[in-house]
């Protein structure tokens, strides 16, 4: 197992997921918290700050993937292996439900103080996760503040004009699109857009050929971009000349994936940018 | 074309094959290159064709080196028939013989009437015209050799160098092939053939070069080269001689116990 890849896969897998995790009873304020997941890194750095964190993932320091890179620079990093974690003698370990499974399995057998975060599929789920984690680290007030800020920013989005809402498709690396029932889908709706992924010629499941996305005829094309990411064929698809040419005909928005890869207060900014794109002319 | 060698030496794998060979190949003569296995017959033939660089000495073609002559001019001047010539693809006879015309064709030039005529002459001369539509791989050894000979003849070069052209032929075709080479010389070509059959060599060649011990042991008309002493020294054999219709002939008769012939080399 290669921790580097697992760590990054974490960021990607967290988009989809099931219902919220069951929460353990909150302890007294943990002082040596270790995070094994980028999304946990982001929430923890916002909730408790760097001082009480014994380690975050190496990804948290990467400004291309993380919205808290500056804070993370002050915390040691791990690569998601149990042997890195145990010597830190953590009093709380926060992991993702779908990532670093080998380390989590080992830590569970050792009865380490472990908390697993699920991948919320709605704004309500995001709020619930923030509150739950805040309780677990003994900072319920800061959790409430984060949630309140997030919800108020979402409520403050400019209202959609009357009539049919502009249709939108979110294109991700490898030709994946964000389907209905996802957090991204809800953000689109809140931003006054209509996610038309399910009505694409070939549906919204799996890797789609570009022509299915282009001929879908959405009013707004949102590219889940990480232009400075390490090169990959998956990412190169997002730079395809057909999409460049399409910009002349269709409103196109490039949205950094760090803004909505993880459920956190940063999704408010994603929604704000989406709403701005709705209003913009092509 | 007149080919001259001056103090020619050749080595292979660090071993001297030829040392200090000086000779001249004149037009209009059929020269047999004879000698025991490993004496350097093929090496000498390749040097005469300009296919290899000598270790020392030089080869000139009408007084000029191979580089001065130019690759294409040399190809038009010398036709070379390699030993047991390989044919790597299932070509048809006619297409194979046409390869002999390559030195005459420009980089983009197509096949001309002159090319076709030369191929017809070569096929007729080599008694292979009836094989024109056959795929070379399906021919018998003798048919194949004639087709390859026709390929070399099709170049219509003033010099023809042939490495063991009769080795795979039955006696009838051996005689026909030797007559053909002699006739080519009568018409003015310089013909050099590596031969193992001393009887044929003595009967058909104007001149024999006997290679042995790294040099030309003897060089001249067959009668002066194929002496008992030379044959003993070069091959370690004794021969029987006779006469038929006023022509002398000889037959290798038995191997002599000493000196031992040189070990065979590939």
């Amino acid at each position, binding site marked *: 197992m290669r921790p580097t890849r697992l760590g990054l896969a974490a960021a990607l897998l967290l988009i989809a997921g099931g219902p919220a995790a069951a929460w353990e009873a909150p302890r007294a304020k943990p002082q040596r918290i270790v995070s094994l997941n980028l999304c946990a890194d982001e929430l923890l750095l916002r909730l408790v700050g760097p001082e009480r964190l014994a380690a975050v993932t190496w990804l948290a320091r990467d400004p291309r993937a993380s919205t808290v890179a500056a804070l993370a620079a002050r915390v040691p990093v791990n690569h998601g292996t149990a042997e890195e974690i145990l010597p830190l003698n953590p009093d709380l370990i926060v992991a993702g439900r779908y990532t670093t499974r080998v380390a989590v399995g080992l830590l569970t057998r050792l009865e380490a103080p472990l908390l697993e975060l699920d991948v919320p599929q709605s704004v309500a789920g995001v709020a619930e996760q923030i509150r739950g984690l805040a309780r677990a680290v003994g900072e319920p007030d800061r959790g409430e503040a984060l949630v309140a800020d997030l919800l108020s920013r979402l409520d403050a989005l400019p209202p959609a004009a009357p009539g049919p809402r502009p249709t939108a498709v979110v294109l991700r690396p490898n030709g994946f699109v964000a389907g209905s029932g996802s957090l991204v889908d809800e953000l689109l709706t809140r931003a006054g857009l209509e996610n038309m992924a399910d009505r694409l010629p070939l549906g919204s499941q799996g*890797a789609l050929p*570009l022509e299915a996305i*282009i001929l879908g005829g959405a009013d707004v094309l949102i590219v889940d971009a990480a232009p400075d990411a390490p090169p990959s064929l*998956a990412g190169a698809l997002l730079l395809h000349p057909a999409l460049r040419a399409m910009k002349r005909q269709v409103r196109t928005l490039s949205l950094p994936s760090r803004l909505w890869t993880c459920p956190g207060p940063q999704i408010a900014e994603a929604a704000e940018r989406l709403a701005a794109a709705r209003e913009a002319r092509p | 074309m007149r080919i001259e060698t001056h103090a020619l030496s050749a080595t292979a794998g660090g071993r001297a094959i030829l040392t200090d060979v000086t000779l001249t190949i004149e037009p209009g003569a059929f020269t047999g290159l004879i000698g025991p296995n490993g004496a350097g017959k093929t090496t000498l033939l390749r040097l005469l064709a300009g296919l290899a660089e000598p270790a020392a000495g030089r080869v000139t073609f009408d007084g000029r080196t191979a580089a001065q002559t130019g690759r294409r001019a040399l190809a038009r001047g010398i036709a070379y028939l390699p030993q047991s010539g390989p044919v790597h693809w299932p070509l048809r006879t006619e297409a194979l013989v046409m390869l002999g015309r390559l030195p005459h064709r420009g*980089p983009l030039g197509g096949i001309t009437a002159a090319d076709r005529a030369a191929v017809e002459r070569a096929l007729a001369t080599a008694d292979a015209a009836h094989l024109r539509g056959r795929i070379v791989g399906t021919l018998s050894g003798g048919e194949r050799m004639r087709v390859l000979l026709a390929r070399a003849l099709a170049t219509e070069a003033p010099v023809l160098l042939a490495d063991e052209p009769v080795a795979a032929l039955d006696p009838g075709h051996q005689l026909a092939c030797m007559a053909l080479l002699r006739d080519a010389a009568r018409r003015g070509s310089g013909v050099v053939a590596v031969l193992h059959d001393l009887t044929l060599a003595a009967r058909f060649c104007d001149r024999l070069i006997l290679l042995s011990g790294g040099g030309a042991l003897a060089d001249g008309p067959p009668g002066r080269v194929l002496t008992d002493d030379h044959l003993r020294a070069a091959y370690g054999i004794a021969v029987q001689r006779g006469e038929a219709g006023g022509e002398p002939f000889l037959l290798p008769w038995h191997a002599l116990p000493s000196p031992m012939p040189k070990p065979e080399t590939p």
Partner: protein
Amino acid sequence: MTAAATWESRIPYPALVAGLTGLALALCAVSAAVGYVPFDLGAALSDWLAGRPTLGALVLAELRLPRALLGLLVGFSLGLTGAAMQGWLRNPLAEPGLVGVSSAAALGAVIVFYSGLSAALSLALPLGGMAGAVTAAVLLNLMAARGAGTTALVIGGIAINSLAGSLTALALNLAPNPYAALEIVFWLMGSLADRGTDQLWLVLPPMLAGWALCLSGARALDALTLGEDAAHSLGFDLTGLRVRLIAGAALAVGSAVSVTGAVGFVGLVAPHLMRPLAGARPGRLLLLAGLAGACLTLAADIAVRLMPTRPELKLGVVTALIGAPFLIVLIARLRREEA
């Protein structure tokens, strides 16, 4: 053999070239018409020609046509190079895929792509492919210079292939992104999915140069039928030929692989199919094998889009399904001949 004789006499070479060119262009048109989403090709074409910016025109000009043309170019490159290498090594198994030239080109392209070099300078991508291809071709040349027979050639090819394949896997594993390890399939099997005009223009010049170099060796390859000494005596510079063929193969295969990955077996099957029609003449075979390679690749690329699998099958899967039986038959025949 007898059937081949009648073919050769019945179909003159210019007619063969014209027929295959027509077939390749027709397959190009079919390839542009076949896609995942049905759309009005005629309307898209007239929109595109009239410069009307419709989505149909965009899909035609930026997706369907580049894909079809790249299929043509890549197929031609592989077929032509296969024929040239076979003529040069006088071995019907010499093919860019089997002898490792393609996988070495893939390695070169992978290193350039995932290191970010090609993002800085797009020309670096085909150059990387060419560097890989030329390395393999030179290794092959060294083996051939030692008089390698079929067995040695195949074993050498396996060695180059597996070395290049594992180094490609290593390079992809070291690449700092989560997709890289999944993308090894693209590089090892090849695909034309969602290729674009930028790739088309990038590889067109080196490919054309590579074709010219390979085709310029036609006469010399004919002469090589008789072996090296005879070819030399017919006035051909074999060292020059070797340099031209290695450079030509590297330019054509290196740039092809750098944008589509290593599509296998085209260079084996195309010359094999065309050899009887070319009267087995290696020089004539070049152009015919190139055209046949283009037809095969286009047909395979049409097939992957007609199959109900999604994401689509890699192109190399289909060409291997066609090519592997050819390989088995060829090896059996060669063993008979060598026995």
